[in-house]
């Protein structure tokens, strides 16, 4: 185990350990792990399976499988990034890590990997509930594509979370993240289809990044509103890069 390292020092192990311990830290923080993993599942069971069971059950369940996936992964990305970055900025952990010879970007990459892992778990749990209990039937490529959308879809929300974390204090961050997360989820039709909401909400929905990710997921299950894929990807890319750049500037200026 502790053999002398004679070859040039490799940073790969640090990246791996950083990600592993980022995950363990969150896993051991029930106030993060439980809501992040359970809320989307519970909501989906309630709205997609129990309440929709009566009429057109499988239809609703199919739509909501896509949107609750997006809802779930948004949560772990926003909380995992926004709240943890804000707390670590407050308590000096980020500064300590910057002073240590940690390989560049290890903290951010670890948080990203963690968000993807949580997204993967959420995605699989939802697929099991949807496939087994709600009677959703999809082609194999659709299950795989939905999984991929969920796992890669964390990136724009990691960037949004990073920006929030760079702006607000650790104690304000959870409230602030909820203030962004919940309204955005509702207004972009993640909880219930936009067709069931007032017209002005449906009209303004494309203003939210979560709308565009949801449209990509809905396209996979053939229930999207018909917008072109390039537009959705374009908006998500702009949000990701824009928030990331702003957050970087803000984090650099904070010191």
């Amino acid at each position: 185990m502790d053999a002398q390292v004679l070859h040039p020092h490799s940073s790969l192990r640090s990246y791996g350990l950083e990600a592993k311990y980022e995950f363990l830290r969150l896993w051991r923080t029930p106030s993060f792990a439980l809501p992040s993993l359970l809320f989307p599942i519970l909501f989906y069971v309630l709205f997609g399976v129990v309440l929709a069971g009566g009429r057109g059950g499988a239809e609703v369940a199919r739509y909501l499988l896509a949107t609750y996936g997006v809802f779930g992964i948004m949560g772990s990305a926003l909380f995992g990034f926004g709240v943890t970055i804000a707390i670590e900025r407050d308590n000096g952990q980020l500064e300590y890590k910057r002073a240590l010879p940690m390989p560049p970007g290890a903290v951010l990459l670890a948080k990203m990997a963690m968000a993807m892992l949580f997204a993967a778990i959420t995605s699989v749990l939802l697929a099991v509930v949807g496939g087994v209990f709600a009677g959703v039937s999809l082609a194999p490529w659709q299950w795989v594509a939905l999984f991929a959308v969920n796992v890669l879809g964390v990136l724009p929300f990691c960037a949004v979370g990073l920006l929030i974390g760079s702006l607000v204090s650790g104690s304000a961050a959870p409230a602030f993240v909820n203030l962004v997360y919940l309204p955005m989820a509702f207004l972009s039709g993640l909880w219930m289809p936009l067709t069931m909401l007032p017209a002005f909400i449906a009209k303004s929905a494309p203003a939210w990044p979560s709308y565009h990710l949801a449209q990509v997921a809905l396209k996979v299950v053939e229930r999207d509103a018909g917008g072109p894929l390039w537009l959705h990807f374009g908006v998500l890319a702009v949000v990701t890069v824009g928030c990331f750049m702003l957050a970087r500037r803000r984090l650099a200026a904070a010191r």
Partner: protein
Amino acid sequence: MARVFNPPLAELVGARKRYGRQVALDGIDIAVRGGELLALLGPNGAGKTTAIGLLLGLLDADDGSARLFGESPHSLAARRGVGLMLQSAGIPDTLKVRELLELTRSYYPDPRSLADCVALAGLDGLIERRYGKLSGGQQRRVQFALALCGRPRLLFLDEPTTGLDIEARQGLWKAIRELVADGCGVLLTTHYLEEAESLADRVVVLNRGEVVASGTVAEVRAHVSQRRIRCQSSLSVARVAQWPGVRSASADGERLEIVADAAEPVVRRLLAEDAGLSDLEVQRAGLADAFIELTREAA
């Protein structure tokens, strides 16, 4: 000169740093060499944290330069030679001591073994405990282990013994002395003057962003040349206070306390004028007196 060439491991040269209009460091020079412990002293706001921030690459100097092993502190290779214990460091509560050590060791090319870290920092029996469940003193020891786990050539210790009891503090002092004897350079900031007095080879006193004194402990102490003389005597305070070389005199009943520039002439005269004098005591200023004097003069 037949001296072994011992280049500074870390140095600030003419380093200046401003925050808005406030000058945090006003062109200071500091150098830490291998096998020596440099204590950086100064009241809050003197610029100690800024100086460390520059040397660790957390801040950039407005003027002058900061070098680590002759390189920029931003260089990862340079920082791999550094271990640090920062007072402000947040360490994740939910990770176990073993996990923290494993992660930090992975940053370094040739880290100490886990067993060595445990032995050096006195972590027996703590290795499987979560950091957040440890006492304050135990957490300090873990931070010390994290600082030395990479086998650093240079250690930054920022208030390392705050919150430790006397026994734990002396244990840590012993470990620090061993590291210095092994050739490690240490930059120590501390509020405990006896800590600097006991450990430091050299001292730099900062005040308001300037170096007000630097040198060995003895040299800094010598900045305050005064002696404190105490005795039981029937001499009148008012008279003694008039003697040449006496800065001040006070009395508590029969007990005289005199502050003088030099002890010998005053003691000679005391003994000559009061045959019944007893309990004579002469003290030289400690680092604490020097420190108070230096930072007050500069203010």
